[in-house]
């Protein structure tokens, strides 16, 4: 095979890379937060979020649950999207009031509550790092 004959293939591969979503380095299936962080997030959730979304993340007729449909809505995006949205929009009565550290704790709690596994290190609170992690459900809801 000559060098020249590889060119079309290389071009094709390059096009495919441009056309598809950027590959994430890892996903929420691989333990991207720590148990301690999720526990801290649970405590924050109880104070800042549960009044609307419910103690068990069940939501209500009016307010979105943070289970089920929630997983479907965020899957395929980087965890950064969820993190940025929470930072901007939540809690609805005081948007923008969560610190990045607390926000990461709450996201960790939401991942855990939706069956995504814990790992050794806490979830980062930097956007660039969160952009590398895909939000991916770990399987059918139990």
């Amino acid at each position, binding site marked *: 095979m000559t060098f020249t004959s590889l060119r079309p293939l290389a071009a094709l591969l390059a096009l495919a890379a441009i056309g598809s979503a950027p590959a994430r380095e890892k996903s929420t299936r691989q333990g991207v937060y720590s148990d301690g962080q999720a526990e801290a997030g649970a405590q924050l959730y109880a104070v800042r979020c549960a009044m609307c979304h419910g103690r068990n993340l069940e939501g209500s007729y*009016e307010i*979105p649950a943070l289970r089920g449909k929630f997983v479907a*809505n965020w899957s395929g995006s980087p965890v950064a999207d969820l993190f940025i949205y929470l930072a901007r929009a939540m809690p609805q009565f005081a948007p923008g009031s969560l610190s990045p550290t607390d926000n990461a704790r709450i996201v960790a709690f939401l991942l855990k509550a939706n069956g995504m596994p814990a790992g050794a290190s806490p979830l980062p609170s930097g956007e660039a790092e969160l952009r590398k992690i895909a939000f991916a459900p770990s399987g059918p809801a139990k």
Partner: protein
Amino acid sequence: MARYGDLITPNVPRRGVVQGALGLAAGLAMTGCSSAGSGAKPQAALPLPARRLRLVPMRVSPDQLIDVKCCLRPLRAAGPNLGTEMVGDTLVVHNYGHGGSGWSLSWGSAEVAVGKALSVLPKEVAVVGCGIIGLTTAIVAQRAGLKVTIYARDLLPRTRSFRASGSFTPDSRIALTDPAGAAFGDLWEQMTRLSWKTFRTYLGLPGNPVEFSDSYQVSDQPIERRKWPRDPAITDSWATKGLPQQNSEFAHYNDRIKDIVPQPVDLAAAENPFPTAYAQRSSQMHFNFASYSHLLLSEFFERGGRYVMRSFHEPTEYGQLPEKVVINAVGFAARDLWLDKTVIPVRGQTGWLVPRFEANYGVRYKNISLLSKADGVVVMNTNPDIGDMLGVGDSLELPRKDDILDGLAIMAPLFARGMEA
């Protein structure tokens, strides 16, 4: 940002005061009735023929309360966003920010938005959001021959629109006078008149999706239209704070449509079905959510409409849709999704009593209003001393049942006696 607690002053008169006032009023009303009947000296302002209307009393006891709903009205100082912009190669036509007038303006506003979408000759459009604005816009686009897909987290019955009271109130927190400018008044009138005509095509249909009923305002004092002159002591305004600071900043346009919308008339004491000294009656148009939304959804799907459950979180996602013309009808969500910081939350809530078809009217007394609708009797507790400023800047979207229960206690004496006379 003003908080709910700062804005609400409990306005619950002591029971003795209510009963005392009503007792006096009932005495007056009975006097008026008997003198009309006996031919004795008539009251000065008694029109002919004066006949007391019999109304079936509402049941305003707490056990009748079946729901309390809270929502946020999306107020924009300049009025609804009906502008256009490009996201990549996608034309986005906005149709959001209708304050407390979304239902009332829905058809007229949809006409404007769809008109802008049609200007680029699309065959198909996407509508983001399925509240009353989104769904109505989708249908108007279909009636114009377009193929329509609605992308939304929920269908109409689970949107904020369904937590409104559902009365025709086209200038309720629709804009602030100065930022909206003079031109908006003309656009408002155009949208309102088109909506009014369209709602009339739903009158008398099975299930009464849209209907009129009598609405009474009753009072222990003479009834005057409340005016809100500018308070010169308040020097800040929306322009300096980003939130309106007093009632005089709110725009009102209802005088423009007095020729078609029934105005209140004074009732003589002998005509007043309530035990109060003063009463006015008007005819109010309202929307019955269940049958009206059923009709809209049926039309949307019968015309081949497609619904995709999807939650959006930032504007760039609109550019990823296959449709290259997108109408953005997300209501209050535009604050967080479209990053429109000019969207001001105005919190409101309604209580709902068991439906009472046989008591088909509305009544307002002190700070409380009741309106009998197909899906229940709506109860609202709105402090008249706060006016349009009630709930401004408050985005805590949780119901406060106690306010509704307070309202029921205020209304109870109206129905305790006097109505069957």
